């Protein structure tokens, strides 16, 4: 949990922010004239009486790098399998390039999938595994050899070309699976947790390779990941799912800064959630009563709330300042006691307990050495944030 908060603030402060900004230029989802490459229209998938995908509608555009994010069992793999053709929707339809794909068998779809379980052919060597799809295409022998060599180089598997899958490590298998699905250069590539078994360094390298491939070939990627950082780094848009339902689809920065509901706010990164009732004070500005003996909190909001409606303020820890004296000009200031300090190297997260028992996290950059830190356990401190720092959510 701590880690998530850390990396997100890093991402949104550092140079990765720049790449996110660059991605903003590519935004076919905002252009009503664009037709999506993939359209899920009210797709429901049931296994017996268990609903794995619940009335899902999504548009994915050509050349997108689309990430599916969600807890285990929320239906990510099932969605992929419907795209690849291994499951058919119980209800609704999936349109690929303007065509309902329900009647198209998997081997006739211009879609390749990297399986979560890798599904490497145990009787074939690594290079033959990678060449498998190319051979089926009837590609000339020399071209196959070149392509396989290229894939081996890309995934750094040259040394293992002649080995069988049971003779390589888990991470290497994962790279073979990736290479095999990349080899055919399909129009749509489905990657089911492609990098989970790789160490951090290799994972980052591979992420950038993937983005590079995507830029060069214009392939549309749909990638499943458990790793938020990964989703945030590589994706043009991220879909957050829960229990087969779509919670929000947005660009990584919007997902982080403007979550549409409490689930997404809580799922992505680290967040403080304060529940209360709203009172409208002006156009787009509200006061939230959250605790009887304390003054209401001020917050602006794009969401329209009626007075008296229950709501939740979501504030990222890095947007909360901590001080020993009550800050003069802050829109919101609350007092509490430091319960815990999580030291994360460049950052520290203070866990502060307010008078009513509510825990609020505040994060600060460690610009000074730890020995000269201003706050310590059991200190009474003030937390403050601006009216625009938080996001006001219904419910």
């Amino acid at each position: 949990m701590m880690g998530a908060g850390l990396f997100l603030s890093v991402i949104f402060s550092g140079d990765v922010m720049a790449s996110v900004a660059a991605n903003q230029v590519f935004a076919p989802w905002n252009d009503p004239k664009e037709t999506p490459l993939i359209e899920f229209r009210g797709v429901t998938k049931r296994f017996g009486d268990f609903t794995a995908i619940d009335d899902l509608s999504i548009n994915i555009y050509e050349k997108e790098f689309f990430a599916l994010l969600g807890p285990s069992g929320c239906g990510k793999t099932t969605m992929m399998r419907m795209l690849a053709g291994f499951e058919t929707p119980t209800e609704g339809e999936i349109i690929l390039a303007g065509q309902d794909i329900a009647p198209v068998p998997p081997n006739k779809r211009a879609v390749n999938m990297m399986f979560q379980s890798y599904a490497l052919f145990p009787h074939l060597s690594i290079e033959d595994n990678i060449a498998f799809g190319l051979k089926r295409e009837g590609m000339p022998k020399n071209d196959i050899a070149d392509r396989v060599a290229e894939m081996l180089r890309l995934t750094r598997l040259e040394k293992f070309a002649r080995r069988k899958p049971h003779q390589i490590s888990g991470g290497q298998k994962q790279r073979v699976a990736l290479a095999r699905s990349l080899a055919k250069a399909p129009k749509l590539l489905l990657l089911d947790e492609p990098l989970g078994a790789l160490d951090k360094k290799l994972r980052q390298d591979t992420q950038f390779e993937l983005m590079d491939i995507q830029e060069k070939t214009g392939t549309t990627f749909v990638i499943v990941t458990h790793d938020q950082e990964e989703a945030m780094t590589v994706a043009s848009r991220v879909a957050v799912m829960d229990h087969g339902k779509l919670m929000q689809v947005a660009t990584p920065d919007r997902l982080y800064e403007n979550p549409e509901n409490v689930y997404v706010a809580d799922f992505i990164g680290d967040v403080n959630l304060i529940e209360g009732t709203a009172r409208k004070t002006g156009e787009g500005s509200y006061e939230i009563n959250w605790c009887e003996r304390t003054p209401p909190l001020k917050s602006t909001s794009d969401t329209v709330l009626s007075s008296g409606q229950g709501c939740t303020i979501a504030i990222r820890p890095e947007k909360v300042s901590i001080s020993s004296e009550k800050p003069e000009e802050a829109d919101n200031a609350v007092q509490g006691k430091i319960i815990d300090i999580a030291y994360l190297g460049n950052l520290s997260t203070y866990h502060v307990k307010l008078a009513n028992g509510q825990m609020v996290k505040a994060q600060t950059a460690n610009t000074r050495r730890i020995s000269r830190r201003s706050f310590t356990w059991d200190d009474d401190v003030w937390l403050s944030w601006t009216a625009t720092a938080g996001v006001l959510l219904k419910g």
Partner: protein
Amino acid sequence: MKRLLIAVPYFWLLALFLVPFLIVFKISLSDVALARPPYFPQWQFEEGWSALTDYLRALDFENFWFLSTDDLYWKAYLSSLRIAVVATFFTLLVGFPIAYGMARAPLEWRPTLMMLVILPFWTSFLIRVYAWIGILSGEGYLNQFLMWLGVIQDPLIILNTNVAVYIGIVYTYLPFMILPIYSALEKLDESLLEAAEDLGCSRFTAFWLVTFPLSKQGIIAGCFLVFIPTIGEFVIPSLLGGSSTLMIGKVLWEEFFNNRDWPVASAVAVVLLLILIIPIILFQRNEQKNREAEG
């Protein structure tokens, strides 16, 4: 302690294979005699060393020489081999689809199906082969049924032909074919076939490029398990086969019990064993490879 453990299987092999083999081999080097036991020379412990050298001098390879002069024997070996090969092929033809169907059946059905395959072993092999006489004979159930259907007018002559022998062998050895293939197919990960389809294979090519090679070890094991005992098979050809069915097991039986020529019969057995050693070694190799691939 560890040595002792390793010694157990060797002792087993020595007591149950090597010693009987040496006895048979010794008999194969003797001459036939009207005596009890019906061969010569004999040697008892109390006769001492000098008698032993005399005894050894009397042994020779005459019987093996005899086997090569009478073409009955090598024809019987060849015919056995041919019947074994053909029967193994048909057993595979019947066994593979059954194993495949079992491996693809819903998980909760599989133990029952497995049980059904093994069930025939619960009754005597001899009785089951006898039952086939009732099915295949001129007025047997098969002919009655076919004539009732109107497919044929006159009864088919199946019993006492090689066809009946093939049917008997396929029926008897089917479980030995099914079980190893089934165990190979059952291990096969369904997602491999999906991956193959995803990469452009039709169902059929996926079968040919993935299912088949991955069940190859099972197929080879099954074929050997059928082939090896079939070569020396005696009961099936004598009960279901006719006078034209030539199999070495039958010849062996006749030499032992009709001609009472133990030395020649033993020579036939020794040669049969030598012939069988090749496929047995190949089978062991296959099993070894299997284990290595898994480990």
